[in-house]
């Protein structure tokens, strides 16, 4: 009744578990990417598609309506709205993306190291994180901008100081879980160095938390850049920036409401696109 069985087992690779396949299936991700893609395209091609330089004033045609020469009208200094919108996209997107680079990298690094080693390093890091988080975000950013100065440089520094903490916290939590998993124990038992374990085994499994968070963080940062611009603390004139455009257009809400509204809509659509990407990515990056 008994058989000698060949112990070999066939392996049938499952298809469609690849990242790109799942990425294309996610409606949020695709929709978000299209939206941001279009805006980014407009931003990159701004010099090409804008009919006028954004600071070119034409004091004979201030507050003009839609016309064949100025598709979206002109502002209070006669500058072409369309041109300013596309150049502002360029500024705001660039500043927004660049502003989170340091927080993301630094925060992820600190969070991973603190979470993996624990002990005094973790305690100190978390206390610092808590202190920074105790300040409301805008209070901190505005305060820092006052200290280091306005303009783009001020924005980068302010975010570098205020924004890394959330990444550190999020990545640390994931690291705490991952470090207890058996494959990390197996890597240690395999004689792999800590650096290698952190880089090849821990980080790839924790960084997705950071990436997903980064998507929603960019939204926050871009809105903050716009807000600072609105307050006059961010990107300085005459550089086009959606925030500054909203602010200066305030005075003309009853007469020429498009001056504030169009940049506002641009911000809202950008935020929507980034949120969709974040949503889609968080689904796709989860290892099935």
């Amino acid at each position: 009744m008994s058989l000698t069985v060949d112990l070999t087992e066939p392996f049938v690779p499952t298809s469609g578990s690849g990242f790109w396949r799942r990425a294309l299936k996610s409606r949020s991700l695709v929709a978000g990417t299209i939206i941001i893609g279009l805006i980014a395209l407009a931003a990159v091609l701004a010099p090409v598609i804008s009919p006028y330089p954004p600071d070119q004033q034409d004091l004979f045609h201030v507050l003009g309506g839609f016309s064949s020469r100025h598709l979206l009208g002109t502002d209070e200094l006669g500058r072409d709205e369309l041109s300013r919108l596309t150049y502002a996209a360029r500024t705001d997107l660039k500043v927004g993306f660049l502003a989170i680079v340091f927080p993301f990298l630094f925060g992820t690094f600190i969070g991973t190291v603190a979470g993996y080693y624990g002990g005094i390093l973790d305690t100190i890091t978390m206390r610092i994180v808590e202190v920074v988080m105790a300040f409301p975000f805008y209070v901190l950013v505005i305060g820092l901008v006052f200290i280091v100065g306005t303009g783009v440089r001020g924005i980068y520094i302010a975010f570098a100081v205020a924004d890394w903490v959330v990444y550190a916290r999020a990545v640390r939590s994931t690291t705490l879980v991952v470090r207890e998993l058996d494959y990390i124990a197996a890597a240690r038992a395999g004689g792999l160095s800590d650096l290698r374990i952190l880089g090849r085994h821990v980080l790839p499994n924790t960084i997705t938390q950071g990436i997903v968070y980064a998507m929603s963080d960019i939204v926050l940062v871009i809105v903050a850049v716009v807000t600072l611009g609105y307050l006059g603390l961010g990107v300085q004139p005459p550089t086009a920036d959606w925030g500054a455009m909203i602010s200066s257009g305030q005075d003309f809400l009853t007469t020429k409401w498009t001056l504030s509204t169009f940049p506002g809509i641009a911000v809202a659509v950008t935020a929507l696109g980034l949120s969709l990407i974040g949503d889609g990515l968080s689904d796709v990056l989860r290892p099935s």
Partner: protein
Amino acid sequence: MNAEPHAARPVGPDVLEIENVTVTFHTHGGRLVAVDSVSLSLSEGETLGLVGESGCGKTTLARCVTGLIPPDRGLIRLDGTELSRRRTKRDHRAVQMVFQDPYSSLNPRLTVRSVLTELLSVHGLARGRDAESRCRELMALVGLRPNALDGHPVAFSGGQRQRLAIARALAVEPRVLIVDEPTSSLDVSVQATILALFDDLRSRLGISILMISHNLAAVRFLCDRIAVMYLGQVVELGSRTEVFTDPRHPYTEALLAAAPRIRPAGGETVRLRGEPPSPTDRPSGCAFHPRCPRAEEVCAVDPPALAPARGTAALAACHFRDEQRYVDRSR
């Protein structure tokens, strides 16, 4: 495959010596002695089984031997040389572990090939084309086709993942393989495959194995000697025949009695009262005495040593180790 399991397997000198190892944890509930001055040895080519229930310390001991947790006291020798608390790369290579949960013991982001080639390259064992052929050999050794090298863990079943974990452990050509509950999350038919695989690897590679399991039947099939642990201590240590047919510690008897049989041979059974105590709350004297059907006053006062019993080569930590109470009904 139908080898008579009681045939003596050729064993050599001690490859692993565990001397008075103690591992303590500091928790909210107090000081927890997970492993309490345990001494064991593993001979070359031998398979030693470590059995016991929750809280007995077998997993902690296994992780300590693998070098994942340093012992607070005691030492571990490999081929006669003491292993330092912080293991070197070479030390790690010598003692490898196959973990219990096949679903968390493989990095979901790496392909099988990546995991294996990384180990081969870190230990300077093989690179490039040599590494690739070694990977194929490892797949063949554990019974998987070479195309498995391209897969990510998510694509494999539990039994296949266990094979991958075994391949990973064997990649660095260890002297000692520690296997932690190799069959617990697997289906019955898959368990048989994995046990048969270990049997096959053992005879082919002559590797020494320390196997942790609560599955007494699997232990009886694979292990030459067995150590029974209770609350951090070894309470019985003997050969397969000795432990299963002539146990001298009441806990061992109770374990044998409690395991359900397919074809029960009848007879009265020993039933324990109560449950395994928490390791933070050790009973006085013999740790087992509150649940022991044989306990007498001395047991609450005087902790018995693990010593040889009369009429057998086995060791038991019981004041009444010389008594032969167990009626063996196996055939």
